């Protein structure tokens, strides 16, 4: 139960990578202080949907779960301590709090964030059936064979209608079921834009702080929020299965743009070599084209377009897996900001956006402001006011509204 985290030596060598962010982060923390004090307990969203727990009013939204009467901050800090001590049950519980976006999670993350940032966060995405879970299982096996623990966050979509989700990725990771140093967590997307990114990055930070040097973040490469999640990892791997037809799924889904590495799975199938060659051909642009593309991207404030590497693997036999892991490790080992810094800055931006959005929403839904917001909505619905003016007014009012 209280097996200590993985060996500290494996972690210390990557510590340097996050130092450049830590200053910016402590600023952000200070800035969040007053807002965080607002524990909007009146805003439970648990009504309506049938799958919501009857206990959600206590454990989820208000953060008043459990028997402890301590404030969420205290309980969060306690949870963080247990996580740092290597307690897996507490880690699992913290991940639930993170998914539920509770104040307990927030408090815990305040403790854990400064000690995270060491792990290599690897996003894995691709069309359904491309072989993502099988690839992750094989990668986890390769990581384990180097003596390191591995964590997997497998994200599956929630039903937009019922809010339920069927999380089946563990099926393909059964070989690790008996291994306590492979931590697999299934997460439902819960369908909110931005929130998924926030929750998964927070969850990855928790796993990172718990001592997992590699965190695989697996999402279906369909739907924007899922792709976004994979793309804000340190390294994004796009998975493609050889197809019977000519169509490369990843292109159709627009995934190649976010790829650092493209992996063609099922390398023993006929057509795998051809798919890989096709992808390589497509991804090799002329030098002048590339310079032009970079210039245009930079002009629009975007990230530099990537020149992904294409690799071929056969997960069941392990062919190509060691090479893929070596490529991942190499990328993570590169200390120069050029390799990982853009991804980390993009992630920071996504996190900040998400948290600001969440906080704004929380305050808007605070019962005390309800009548004013409702009035605004009515006016908009009746076309008495346009949405832009309405937003300006709400934002102006928010400054006057008390935070807590």
């Amino acid at each position: 139960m209280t097996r200590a985290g993985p060996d500290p030596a494996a972690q210390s060598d990557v510590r340097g990578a996050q130092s450049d962010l830590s200053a910016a982060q402590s600023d952000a923390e200070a800035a969040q202080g007053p807002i965080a004090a607002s524990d909007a307990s009146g805003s439970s969203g648990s009504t309506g949907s049938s799958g919501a727990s009857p206990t959600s009013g206590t454990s989820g939204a208000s953060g008043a779960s459990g028997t402890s009467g301590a404030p969420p901050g205290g309980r969060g800090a306690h949870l963080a301590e247990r996580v740092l001590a290597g307690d897996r049950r507490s880690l699992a519980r913290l991940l639930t709090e993170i998914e539920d976006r509770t104040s307990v999670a927030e408090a815990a993350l305040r403790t854990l964030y400064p000690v995270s940032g060491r792990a290599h966060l690897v996003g894995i995405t691709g069309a359904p059936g491309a072989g993502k879970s099988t690839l992750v299982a094989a990668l986890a096996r390769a990581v384990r064979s180097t003596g390191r623990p591995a964590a997997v966050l497998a994200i599956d979509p929630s039903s937009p209608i019922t809010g339920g989700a069927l999380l089946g990725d563990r099926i393909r990771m059964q070989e690790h079921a008996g291994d306590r140093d492979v931590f697999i967590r299934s997460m439902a997307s819960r369908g909110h834009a931005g929130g998924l990114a926030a929750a998964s990055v927070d969850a990855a930070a928790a796993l990172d702080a718990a001592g997992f040097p590699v965190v695989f973040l697996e999402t279906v490469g369909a739907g924007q929020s899922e792709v976004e999640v994979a793309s804000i990892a340190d390294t994004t791997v796009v998975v493609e299965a050889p197809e019977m037809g000519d169509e490369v799924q990843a292109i159709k889904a627009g995934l190649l743009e976010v790829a650092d590495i493209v992996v063609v799975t099922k390398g023993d199938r006929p057509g795998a070599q051809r798919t890989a060659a096709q992808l390589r051909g497509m991804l090799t642009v002329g030098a002048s084209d590339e310079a032009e593309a970079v210039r245009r991207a930079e002009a629009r404030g975007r990230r530099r377009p990537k020149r992904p590497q294409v690799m071929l693997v056969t997960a069941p036999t392990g062919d190509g897996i060691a090479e893929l892991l070596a490529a991942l490790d190499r990328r993570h080992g590169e200390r120069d900001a050029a390799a990982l810094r853009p991804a980390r800055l993009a992630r920071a931006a996504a996190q900040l956006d998400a948290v600001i959005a969440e906080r704004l929403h929380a305050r808007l839904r605070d019962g005390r402001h309800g009548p004013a917001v409702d009035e605004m909505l009515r006016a908009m619905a009746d076309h008495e006011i346009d949405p832009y003016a309405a937003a300006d007014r709400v934002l102006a009012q928010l400054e006057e509204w008390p935070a807590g």
Partner: protein
Amino acid sequence: MTPEARAGVETGASAPASESERLGRSATERSLEEREHWRETTRARAVAEHPERREMFVTSSGIPIADVYVPGDIAALDEDRDLGRPGEYPFTRGVQPTMYRGRLWTMRQYAGFASAEQTNRRFRYLLEQGQTGLSVAFDLPTQMGYDSDAAWAEGEVGRVGVPISSLADMELLLGGIPLDRVSTSMTINATAPILLAFYVAAAERQGVPRAAVSGTVQNDILKEYIARGTYIYPPRPSMRLVTDVFEFCAAELPKWNTISISGYHMREAGATAAQELAFTLADGIAYVEAAQRRGLDVDRFAGRLSFFFAAWSELFEEVAKFRAARRMWARIMRDRFGARNPRSQMCRFHTQTAGSSLTAQAIENNVVRTTLQALAAVLGGTQSLHTNARDEALALPTEESARLALRTQQILAHEAGVTETPDPLAGSYFVESLTDELERAAQAYLDEIGALGGALAAIEAGYQQRQIQESAYRRQRAVEAGEEIVVGVNRFVDEPVPAPPIQRIDPGEEGRQVERVRRVRAERDARAWGRAMEHVRTAAAGDENVMPALIEAVHGGATLGEMSDALRAVWGEHRESVTV
């Protein structure tokens, strides 16, 4: 429609057609026109007064059922091409010329309990009661390649069938049963080559020559990946084992049925009749292709292929399914694989009534369900039949309930008058139409599987699994919504009665079985065993047929778990990859 309008239509349509018109049209065309007329008049009036029970009537496979069938519905039917005569291509009307006028179907009740001794007692009892063939159910450790003393076996030994870990167990199971006269069907798949090796060795110890041994191994690994779940090795080496059995039996066991290509478990997992039909035939195609790739001549092995279907209560659709299966398989074998021997073209099949149709509530109702299902199998021309016992939704059958299940078959055979002429429903407008419709629906699935690269590739892509899960879920929802009625469950519910006595497994049996397998290991000649096991490994790693090596190992005292482990070491284990 207003009464006036209806009257108008009536007068218009019933105006007598001129003589020349009548002469220009065939009787079938006329039947279609007359049906239209009937729809607009007689039927329309009736429906206006009393609407039909449902908007639409459909079969389990979603095939719409018409308000009436007429000769025009089967106008395209060509007797020579589509039906033939009993015992003749395309065998729609049955694989034997005389069908049950010559010999009744084999009444084969599946049984296997707790231990080899107990099962042997049950077998002898069933043979005395008039059963004509044996059918062995194995426990899960035996099906999964674990000896009774393996860690995985704990709590599972003897639960769903008999545990067989060594030749000693097999000899106990078959003790006192003349293997040259009784045919034995073994429901075994991933470990089929090993159990066949045990059986051959036991027969040899009885002094029965290989040529006289008859029976069946299920040996259908593809449906394990699709529906039943008891696979061990990855699909490709598993297919090699299947063809090893084909090849060995073609040379050594001429009376052995090398495979029972099974739709039953897919149906039990939720497939519709059309899916059951299509996915079974697709598997059959994959096996024939594999054997041909091995270099076997189709007419040397195809005559030993057999099938296994489920029978549900929807009588007509089931009969149509069996008829369509025979017709489709005959065409596939002749036209696609070039089989010339009529026996290679015959879809011979075993049928079991639908276990998943049985209810735990009001279990007497299950006898009625089973009777209907058995009737469907008989009207569909089955070669052998297992009828489920009424208490199988609760536990393994008691001796009493198993006897009643057998009596059900005997009543059908001897009292119902359904055996006196082959394919008695042939020519029924409805049944012939439904046979065509099922064939069409199944062919559409076969085409999709073909486009995916065949049954094996489709399984790897999860195609069949997903189709079946979809159907299972739809049915569950339909039952819960009351759209599908299950008597005694969601309608016509009886007061609960105390549960009847059920078959209990003596927990002591597991210990005795574990002891026996350990004794076998302790008492064998270690050197002969070691040599034989080495042979198993080299055969598996190379191209050599594994059957002779397995039989040698069995004689050398090797256990099922040891042989399975040797193969695992070479081929690895399969993990399911398809999500819900």
